[in-house]
């Protein structure tokens, strides 16, 4: 694996984190980051869709006519998302009822179309698939980060269940239930958590940049 590809893969986490620095895919991020379960379920679904859409679009990049590339991307992405939705409905019904409308809305998640347009249609299949994985992991990482804060502050405990078998993997109470701030489970809490985390990411990136300039 050459160095540039690896750098590009890593960038999805902090430097080019799709949620906190590119501000892509915000709608679903704010809406479903109420619990670890939802965040993980959404994240994994997006990773799968992103890898597949990047791969397929990259494979077809030489035959897709330039004038209609966006509609073609949308058809590919929506087919993938609808298939995922049907599989989730069939095999992980609890996840389906928790995420609800936000599964079909992955079609309009800007991260996916954004990566198709900005990366997959210019790069090789293997690089595009890796970019999909990197960006998808970056998105999942952001969702998990927001949801940890929101679930702990809003409900006082942190829990994870297996969506296929509904077995509780862990459930830890961190804050006694009398002292929770249920505001954090609502949209206000989502915005506050997001803003603080985005500020943190901006600070980290600014510091890194300053260091790079200093070191020449």
């Amino acid at each position: 694996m050459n160095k540039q590809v690896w750098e590009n893969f890593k960038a999805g986490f902090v430097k080019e984190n799709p949620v906190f620095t590119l501000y892509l895919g915000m709608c679903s991020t704010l809406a479903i980051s109420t619990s670890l379960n939802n965040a993980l379920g959404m994240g994994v679904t997006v990773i799968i869709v992103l890898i597949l859409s990047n791969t397929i679009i990259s494979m077809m990049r030489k035959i897709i006519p330039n004038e209609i590339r966006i509609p073609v991307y949308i058809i590919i992405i929506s087919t993938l998302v609808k298939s995922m939705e049907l599989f989730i409905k069939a095999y992980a019904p609890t996840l389906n009822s928790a995420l609800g409308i936000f599964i079909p809305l992955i079609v309009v998640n800007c991260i996916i179309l954004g990566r198709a347009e900005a990366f997959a249609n210019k790069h090789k299949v293997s690089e595009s698939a890796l970019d999909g994985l990197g960006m998808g992991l970056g998105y999942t990482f952001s969702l998990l980060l927001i949801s940890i804060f929101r679930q702990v502050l809003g409900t006082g405990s942190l829990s994870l269940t297996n969506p296929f078998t509904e077995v509780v993997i862990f459930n830890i109470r961190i804050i006694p239930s009398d002292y929770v701030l249920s505001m954090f489970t609502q949209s206000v809490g989502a915005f506050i958590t997001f803003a603080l985390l985005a500020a943190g990411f901006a600070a980290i990136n600014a510091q890194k940049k300053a260091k790079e300039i200093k070191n020449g």
Partner: protein
Amino acid sequence: MKRIIYLACFLGIISALAGGILAYVNDVTYEKINEIAIASEKANLIKLYPNGAFEEVTFNDDSGLIKKVFKVDNGAYIYKIEVYGYKDYISFLVAIDDGKIVGYTVISVNDTPGYGMRVADDEYVNSITGTSIDADVPLLSGATISSTSVVNGIEAAIKLHQSLGGN
């Protein structure tokens, strides 16, 4: 002109392929999804009558709130009700027997945690169960909008129960 026809054909072929893939996925998952829908209905009924045998009853409801009616083998009726709460639909079951509400269980609710969500809590379940169908169904303070919708649904079920000739 030629270019436009080419583009249209290209888009048409891609759409047809996508349609074919979706038809296949739908075919693979259809039975499983259907099965889950039926199983989840039964799973909820069992919460009210663990050993009951259930039979779906046809009915005529003017309020439009009652989605399904099941007759239990001991003579009780279970009503599946769907009402609009504070920000989403609340779906719940109510069992009526001997002139009393003998069971109430919420299937799905998506209102505000700590407020409307409390219509599914034990506190409210206990205050509803045992209420006579001639008395007022209790509301839940702090969750007025959500519980008013639930009460409207239950009252529609009581009306239907009387017209069905249930005891």
